C-alpha cells in the first residue's frame, strides 16, 4: 500500500516536497487505520488485524523524516526554518497517535453492543476521514496558497465540533446500556472513542497552527 523510497530519490526532493510526501504517507496511514476500525465494526477481524498491524509496522515515514531532517538543518531558509520543522513534527505526531491507537485496539477482540453504536461510530469515522484528508490538502496548500490553507482549517475545526457532539452521544449511550457490561468491553469502547477524538483533536490543533502560520506570514491589505 505504501511505497518504499530510494534514499537518492529522497535526497533530490525539496523541503516542501518532502513535507508533502510525508503528509501523504501519514494521511494514507490514517486512512488505513480508519478503514481498520470500519472492518472492526463489520466484524471482519482478520482484515482489522491486518490494517492495524500495517499502521504499526510501516517504517517508510522514517526514511522521509531522516531525509527531511538532514535537509532542514542545512537549509538556508532562516526565517521559516523553525516553522517548517514544527509543521513536520506535527505531521509526525499524527503517526504516533495512530500507532498508539492501533496498539491499544489490538489488545482485545471487541463485540459491539448494538447497531446504533456502530452507526454513530461510523459517522465519527467518516468525519475523521474527512478532516484527515482536508488536513493533507491544507498542509500542501501552505506553500502555494496560505489563504486556502486557512479556510480549509476552518472547515476542519467545524467538522471536529460536530464530532464532539457524536462523541458525547456515544459515551452517554455507553454509560446507559441496560445490560451489565463486562468492564473490558466498556473500557475498550470508551478508550476507542476517546482515542478517535484524540486524533481529531490533534488534527484540530494542527489546523490552528496552520492558521497561525497563515496569519504570521501573510501581509494583509
Amino acid at each position, binding site marked *: 500500500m505504501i511505497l518504499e523510497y530510494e534514499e537518492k530519490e529522497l535526497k533530490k526532493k525539496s523541503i*516542501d516536497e518532502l513535507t508533502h510526501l510525508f503528509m501523504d504517507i501519514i494521511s494514507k496511514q490514517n486512512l488505513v487505520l480508519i478503514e481498520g476500525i470500519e472492518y472492526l465494526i463489520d466484524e471482519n477481524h482478520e482484515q482489522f488485524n491486518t490494517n492495524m498491524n500495517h499502521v504499526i509496522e510501516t517504517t517508510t515515514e522514517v526514511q522521509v523524516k531522516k531525509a527531511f531532517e538532514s535537509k532542514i538543518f542545512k537549509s538556508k*531558509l*532562516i*526565517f521559516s526554518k523553525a516553522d517548517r520543522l514544527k509543521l513536520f513534527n506535527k505531521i509526525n505526531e499524527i503517526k504516533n497517535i495512530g500507532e498508539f491507537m492501533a496498539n491499544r485496539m489490538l489488545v482485545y477482540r471487541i463485540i459491539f453492543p448494538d447497531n446504533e453504536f456502530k452507526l454513530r461510530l461510523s459517522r465519527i469515522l467518516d468525519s475523521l476521514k474527512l478532516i484527515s484528508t482536508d488536513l493533507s490538502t491544507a498542509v500542501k496548500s501552505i*506553500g502555494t496558497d496560505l489563504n486556502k490553507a486557512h479556510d480549509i482549517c476552518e472547515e476542519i475545526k467545524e467538522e471536529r465540533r460536530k464530532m464532539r457532539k457524536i462523541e458525547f452521544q456515544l459515551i452517554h449511550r455507553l454509560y446507559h446500556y441496560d445490560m451489565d457490561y463486562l468492564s473490558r468491553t466498556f473500557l475498550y469502547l470508551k478508550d476507542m472513542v476517546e482515542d478517535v477524538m484524540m486524533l481529531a483533536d490533534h488534527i484540530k490543533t494542527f489546523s490552528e497552527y496552520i492558521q497561525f*502560520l497563515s496569519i504570521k506570514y501573510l501581509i*494583509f491589505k
Partner: protein
Amino acid sequence: MANELNQIMIIVLIILAIALAFSIGANDETLSALVGTGALKFKIALIIGGTAIGGGMILTSGGFVAKTVGSDILGEGLVYTTSMLLTVLISSILWLIVGSFAGIPLSSTHALIGSVVGVIITYSIFQGGVDPQTAFNWEKLGNVILSWFISPIFGLLITYILFKIMAKLYLTRLKGLNQIEISENYFKWILVIAVIFAEIWVGANSGEALGILYGLLDNGSISFEQYYLYAIFCGIFAFLGIYIAARYVIKNLAIQMTDSRPSEGLIIQISSAIILMIATLLSLPISHSHVIVFCIIGINLAQKKEIETKSLSRMAIYWVLTFPIAAIMAGLLYFGLMSIGFI
C-alpha cells in the same frame, strides 16, 4: 607644571576619545538584522559592518556632527578648555555606566550634549565670566535638541509609509510560503546593502568621539594633521569595537531575529539610515537607538501589531531625563573640580 598637566589631559582626552569610538562600535547592533538572516558569514558581516562604521566616521570627520559637538554648539568666541572636555567625557561616561548597571538603554549622544551644556553653564557662571545667554549657539543647540524629538517621529513615519507602499505594491500579493521564502531571499541580499548604508551613517552621526577631538582642534591643542590622524584611529577602533566586542550582542540579537522577515529588517534599516543621513548632513547628532526603536514601532503600527506601551513609556522617561541629568552631573563635577583647585 600647569602646561605639563594640560599636556597630560590632552593625551588622556585623545585616549578616551578613541576608547569612546571603540565603545560606539562595541554597542552597535545594526548588524544583528543582517546576521539573523544568515546572508553573510558572521565574521564577514562583522568586517563589512566594521569597515562601514569606521569609514563613515572617518569620511565625515572634517565637519558635520563632529564640528557641531566640538565647536558650533558653543557661543561665538567660546572654545572648550581641555578640562571642560575631560569633565564632559567623564560625566557622560559615568551616566552611561549608571544606566548600564540599572539596565536602562541610554543615548550617549544625549548624555554628551547634556554634559556639554552642564559644563558650559557652570563655567560661564563661576569661572569664565561669560553670560550664559551668549555661551551657546542657541540656534544650533535648539536644532540639536529639536532633532532628538523629530528624528524618532520621522523614523516612525518613514517606516510606516515605506511598509504600506511595499505591502500594497508587492508583499500582499505573495500568497504561499514558498513564494514568500523566495522573495525574502532576495530581500536578504538587498538588506546587506541597506545595512552597509546604515552603518556608514551610524559611524558618520556618532559625533561623540570626534566631537571631543574637534574640540581639541578648535582650541588649538592639536593640529589638523593630528586631528585627522586621530580620526582615522577612531575609525579603526570603531571597527575593532564591532569586530571584538559587539559580536556577542550581535550574535544574541541575531538568534532572536532568526524568524523575523528580511523585508521588515530592510525597511527598518533604510528608514533609520535615511534619518541618520539627513541628520548628519544637517550636522545634527541624534540617537541611533531612539530612531531604531521608533522605526520598529512604525512597522508594528503598519501591521496593526500590538505595541508594548509600558516598557516604551519607561524608556521615554529615561530618554527625556538623560539630557538634564547629564547636564546636572557634569555641572556638579566641573564645579567640584573647580572648588578643589584642579581646574
